[in-house]
């Protein structure tokens, strides 16, 4: 049976409404795009929607209470909430360096790490 998914293309401010028809996992037709980027985007969203993911973790001994962190690769959209839960458990202690790996292989998957987005020195209060 043919089903359809709707997306809004994020490629440029025009925001074309995209329609992707599929049978199970098989893409039948993509329509609504004004340029190739839209078709590519719809395909990506259907097969594996990926997102940047950044958040903050608690840090002690630093100028601020929160340290900005990110996952060093885009992750599947459905993993964002799971990622947030795992990362929020983390407690770090200053000093931390920009790019320092805080959790290795965060989803048990090789190469997907949580890294610090800035340097935070130890502050003596």
């Amino acid at each position: 049976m043919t089903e359809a998914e709707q997306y809004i293309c994020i490629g440029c401010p025009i925001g074309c409404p995209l329609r992707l028809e599929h049978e199970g996992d098989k893409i039948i037709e993509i329509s609504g795009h004004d340029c190739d980027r839209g078709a590519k985007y719809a395909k990506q969203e259907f097969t594996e929607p990926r997102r940047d993911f950044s958040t903050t973790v608690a840090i002690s001994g630093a100028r601020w209470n929160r340290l900005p962190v990110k996952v060093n690769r885009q992750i599947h959209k459905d993993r964002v909430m799971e990622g947030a839960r795992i990362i929020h458990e983390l407690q770090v202690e200053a000093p931390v360096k920009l790019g320092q790996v805080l959790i290795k292989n965060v989803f048990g998957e090789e190469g997907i790490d949580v890294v610090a987005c800035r340097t935070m020195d130890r502050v003596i209060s």
Partner: protein
Amino acid sequence: MSLKWKTINIQKPGKKFNILGHMEQAYDVVVIGGGPGGMGAALGARESGVARVLILDRESEPGGILLQCIHSGFGLHYFKEQLTGPEYAERFLNKVIDDNVKIMAGSYVSGIAVDSDGTKQVRVLSEDHGQVIVKTRAVVLSMGCRERTRGAIRIPGTRPSGVLTAGLAQKFVNMMGMLPGKRIAILGSGDIGLIMARRLMLEGCEVVGVFEYLPYSNGLTRNVVQCLEDFGIPLHLSTTVAYIHGRDRVERITVAPVEKDLKPDLSQARDIQCDTLLLSIGLIPENELSQSLGIRLDLITGGPWVSSTLETSMPGVFACGNVLHVHDLVDYVTRESLLAGRFAGEWAQGVRRPVDNIRLIPGDNVRYCVPHSLSTEREHTIYMRCKTVMQPCKIRVGNLMEKKLRFVVPAEMIMLKIKPHLLDKFHGDTLRIDILPEDA
């Protein structure tokens, strides 16, 4: 990296001056504000060949608004990489420090005075050194902008706690580790509001909806999709907050659709339970300092009126970044500020460029353009914003050139390059810029 800017020593106030300290050291260029605008200007000034460049910032560390923007989306043009705000700031800061620019954080600039010989005296209230005066040849203003508050749009109702701007909430959540509330409504669909909706969801809050009085979102489509749709947060277009209820704390808000005249239709109003209302209703350049200097401001941008060298109406005082006009992309801030810094550095070295001979006039569907004038001697980049959505369309620059665009929206700044050979042929003294339908 250690906090080098913390170790910079400024001479203690001399005894001769009782209240005002006196700095022996003078600078070529002093930059006010240490955000991406200020850092770019400092680098630009160093590039022009001046040695003594100082950045002053009132916060405890430089970086500006970027430090609280922990999402990615910065630096695609400049670093050719998607970076988060803090990463962009730190990379830039390292460049600035490596380039021997001095940075004084915890230093609030409370005034600028100009001597009869053109030297500027910058009055600084410094955490470490008290009140000091810094002397300099040229100044770059890069104080950024601030958010419009409830008062700016006069939302009726009580005055409970729990009504705050989205950017302030961003600092609370991302740096200080405090949540503004549990059930959150957001007024305004600009990018900051959208990004905060996702942030608060990830932090375990409930976001009941984003309300926008215009019929379209003011934010990037990417943010509407990835910050709202991904999390099932509803976006209510053509809807506004008509009343805020609650004695000590926000208890609920009344929302209503708006009619054509943008007034709420109260017959269709409904109440929504929430304990917090975030406002994402626009930014205003922070120009108290400029005003105290008597600098001419553009009433539309809210920033200084600048020539093609980004010099304000006060000779030797330049401006860039959000204090000049509100930017949506930090990469544009960087580009503009490098330029402002370069011209400020030149000025400090005594270079005086010919006065601009062409005034720019914003015409049809152009809300503003910056800079406000051009000279015929070099290439120019003009930044502008349109008044309304138009698709497809073209930009017409006097009778010099036309450029086709697929789409313009007020939320996205338009950048236009004008080559010197076009201006060579031009003999008028005003140049009008219009954005017109494609077939006009």
